[in-house]
């Protein structure tokens, strides 16, 4: 094979490899267990991926803008606990906007630190992971939160309701993915997110207000977290205050699996959705073939490294790294 065609195939794999891998997984699991491709099962998987997925949508913006967000997990715990607590105190109609306002404030604070004060996003969000966790524990007094009247509230609609035969969490996830996907691909804001992540200096030299773009990405991420928290709270109507712990890394795994570079400037909402679904279906498929949930961790590990490796290998045209 000539060098050119090899590179072309490599390039194709790099671009579409994630879809190919996804297809192979689906076929493999389907062959192993018929129930895997049962529509109910598929809906079930998407539904249980929705919370992770909604968070991943927001983090995609942050990552494309060239930053990290490790605080989404503890932020999700926070919004879940807050909305459950306020539900009984001021009623769901007020609790939801109050929770959104508080979560967005946290996002704005992070956005201010990373965007306007230009602090390193890894450390800031690491600090916020810890700080928000502490905030949640302090708020809840270390106790679990439960809604008193679980039967008589309309609040359960976001997590347990159905419309047109489709669970509401899926509808929320799909709608949000569509809106944010279009926003990222088609609007001036989306263009600026790519520019800031691709080359922040050049973006500044082009008159783009980089700080404002980064700030907006974190607020957007917080908005997604709030929606995820709403779904989580509504689904269970009660929660531990560590419900989102560790999710920040699963979210990041899904985004990376979708092909977004941690250096910023690349990635799409569509690919992130694929990344989320792959994680969801792997977990489901492994359970269906009789393996425990934690086997998923090991498989995810292998897949993430393979996906990123093949991606950069295709770009450099060599499988092995040039590091001496």
């Amino acid at each position, binding site marked *: 094979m000539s*060098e050119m065609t090899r590179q072309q195939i490599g390039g194709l794999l790099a671009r579409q490899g994630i879809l190919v891998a996804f297809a192979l997984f689906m076929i493999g699991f389907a062959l192993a267990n018929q129930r895997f491709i049962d529509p109910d099962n598929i809906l079930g998987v998407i539904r249980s991926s929705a919370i992770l997925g909604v968070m991943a949508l927001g983090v995609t913006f942050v990552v494309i803008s060239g930053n990290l967000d490790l605080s989404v997990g503890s932020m999700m715990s926070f919004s879940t606990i807050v909305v459950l607590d306020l539900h009984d105190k001021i009623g769901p109609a007020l609790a939801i906007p109050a929770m959104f306002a508080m979560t967005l404030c946290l996002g704005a604070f992070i956005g201010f630190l990373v965007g306007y004060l230009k602090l390193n996003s890894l450390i800031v969000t690491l600090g916020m992971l810890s700080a928000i966790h502490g905030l949640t524990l302090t708020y809840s007094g270390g106790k679990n939160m439960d809604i008193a009247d679980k039967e008589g509230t309309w609040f359960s609609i976001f997590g347990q309701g159905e419309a047109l035969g489709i669970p509401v969490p899926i509808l929320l996830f799909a709608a949000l993915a569509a809106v944010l996907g*279009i926003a990222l691909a*088609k*609007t*001036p804001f989306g*263009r*600026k997110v*790519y*520019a800031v992540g*691709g*080359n922040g*200096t*050049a*973006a*500044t*030299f*082009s*008159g*783009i*207000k980089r700080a404002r773009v980064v700030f907006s990405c974190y607020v957007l991420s917080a908005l997604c977290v709030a929606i995820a928290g709403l779904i989580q709270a509504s689904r269970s109507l009660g929660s531990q205050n560590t419900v989102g712990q560790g999710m920040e890394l699963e979210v990041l795994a899904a985004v990376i699996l979708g092909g977004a570079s941690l250096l910023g*400037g*690349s990635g799409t909402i569509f690919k992130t959705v694929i990344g989320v679904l792959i994680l969801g279906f792997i977990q489901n498929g492994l359970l269906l073939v009789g393996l425990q949930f934690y086997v998923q961790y090991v498989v995810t590990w292998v897949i993430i490294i393979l996906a990123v490796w093949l991606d950069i290998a295709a770009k450099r045209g060599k499988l092995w790294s040039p590091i001496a």
Partner: protein
Amino acid sequence: MTDPTPALRLEDIVKTFPGVRALDGVSFSVMPGEVHALMGENGAGKSTLMKVLGGILQPNEGRIIINEEPAVMSGPLDAKAKGIVFIHQELSLADELSVAENIYLGELPRKRFGLVDWPRLEEKTNAILGKLKVGFDARTRVGDLSIANQQMVEIARALTVDAKAVIFDEPTASLTDAEKVVLFDVIADLRAHGVGIIYISHRMEEIFKITDRISVLRDGQYRGTLNTAETNEEEVTQLMIGRKLDLSRNASHHELGDVALEVRNLSCGRLYHDVSFEVRRGEVLGFYGLVGAGRTEIAETLFGLRTPSAGQIRLDGQETRITSPADAIGKGISLVPEDRKTQGLVLGMNCRDNMTLPQVDDLTAGPFVADGAEIAIFDQYRDRLDIRTPGWKQQVGNLSGGNQQKIVIGKWLSMHPNVLIVDEPTRGIDVGSKSEIHKLVRDLAAQGYAVIVISSEMPEVLHVSDRIVAMYSGRIIRTFTSEEVTEDNLIQAISGIGEKVA
């Protein structure tokens, strides 16, 4: 030369990349004790040749011969072991480490169990530093040294081996005059010890001052070697660019318009001080000076990237403050920045998106970016600037330097600025694109733009400017009209000759 054996000889070196012959049969030799200049335009193949010499790239054909023995360099360390030493333009020092550790980077003297032999390291280092007569010691942290002293550390590194040939790559780029004297002393000392020296520089005055012979590359090909004593700048230039350089002045023949931009007593900390000038519509104002003279910093101030500490800026007679690039753009100022790769372009984005980036907020249909309007702008400037690209979807990073620069220029022309500032418009692009860009700058002035051109290349600044501001050490020394300016008085002005600078 009394010694007939060259310290280093290159024979028919060929290096190809997919689609490019970067080096096409390059041969020349450096005698022991000779200072040999290597010249060529950017892109002529100098850096590829250096990579071949340093073992970073392997030549496809040809031989490298050191002291009559053919040598194959497997890497930088191997090259060094064989006596080929580089003094890089971009300093390759680890600034958190000490001087001694940097000099022996990769070759720290060891004791048993992989321990560093500190006493021996210091002893060896101090011996070398003694030869260079520098004012710092082995334990100094490199990050605490001035640029010139850091360069001395690089040179000290060269002295750690039995060097056959030392290659200086643009060594004076960031040195003061006093520091240059020290550098030239060091070079003289090396040469007295029989080391062959390859000296890469664009600065003619230095070349003629310190070198014995000059070899010229053009488009990857060897164009000949001249004895410095028997040639002159014109001949070298002609060899470099392959034709006689059009040095004709280009003062505007059209009527100049009103003053578009006026700057009065502008200062910015230690960067520049008390700067005043104005530029009219239809005029090209050139800024000439050494790197670090404050030219770029003035441009950055006008573009809202720096806050001036004193002085006024007037646009069309109105005093104004420019607080950010977005603000500058709104007020009709555009800046084609110095470094297109880090400041001008998002290399991973496509041509169209790069070109419309500053106005993407305005090119909308409803909430969305209007594709059609964007493509129309791209097509318009692709045709006008003759940008060669397969299409707007092409990633900018895949274009040649000249085409990349045209994208940046197109980006700013499409904003229809009142004042266009162009910083180093032709750095690192080929000769053909260079003259196109020069012509474009002249055309823009003829169309009534007020243009500021900042350049480190004297022919360029003489060629395109109506008036020239000469800067030295953060001050404007003099503003020349095209009638007054000569190469001599320009050089004197930017070198600080005859000026008292506090």
